[in-house]
């Protein structure tokens, strides 16, 4: 079980690096916002898995708050790009 969690963390770290590269390279504002959205979802998954590693039940609340509030920033940026804020 320990090696499975190691492999999962290596995959998530590689995903963070690729999303950050797309955030730096992206030609338009939409690409950077997509990178922010993907980083948010990978962050929620990493928070849940870290809560399992630390064996604390209370730590899952942080991932819950992030899953609830994480999309508001993307929606506000999208409404600004649309011109209808």
């Amino acid at each position: 079980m320990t090696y499975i969690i190691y492999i999962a963390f290596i995959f998530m770290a590689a995903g963070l690096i690729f999303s950050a590269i797309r955030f730096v390279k992206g030609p338009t504002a939409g690409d950077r916002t997509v990178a922010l959205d993907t980083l948010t979802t990978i962050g929620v998954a990493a928070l849940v898995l870290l809560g399992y590693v630390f064996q604390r039940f209370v730590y899952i609340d942080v991932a819950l708050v992030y899953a609830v509030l994480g999309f508001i920033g993307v929606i506000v940026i999208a409404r600004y790009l649309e011109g209808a804020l």
Partner: protein
Amino acid sequence: MSILEIIGGILILIGSAFLFLGALGIFRMPDVYNRLQAGTKATTLGGMSLVLGVGFLEPSWMLKSLIIIIFIAYSNPISSHALARAMYRRGHYPLIKDKDKEKMDAYREVVPHKTKEEEKS
């Protein structure tokens, strides 16, 4: 190892693999809409699978895992749809073949948009 731990480990491996593939799709796809497809749908599946796997590993955490899955399942498509709509209205059109232009023009009359000349940045 019990049967729940085996199921949880397999779900965690599938979820982390799909998270990595979603990020790789963001890095390699050529267009904004293709990046939205890769970055939102694959990532939604990966996140839901990984959180469900953690719920199988610790069965007393299953209720909170299901709540997180519900929030991921409604918040990711909302942001994806809002972003695609905003990019279409700004005048960034998808990479498309010439014989398929008419289908996109049929949708263009439904949604108000900017033309190429009005759009500067």
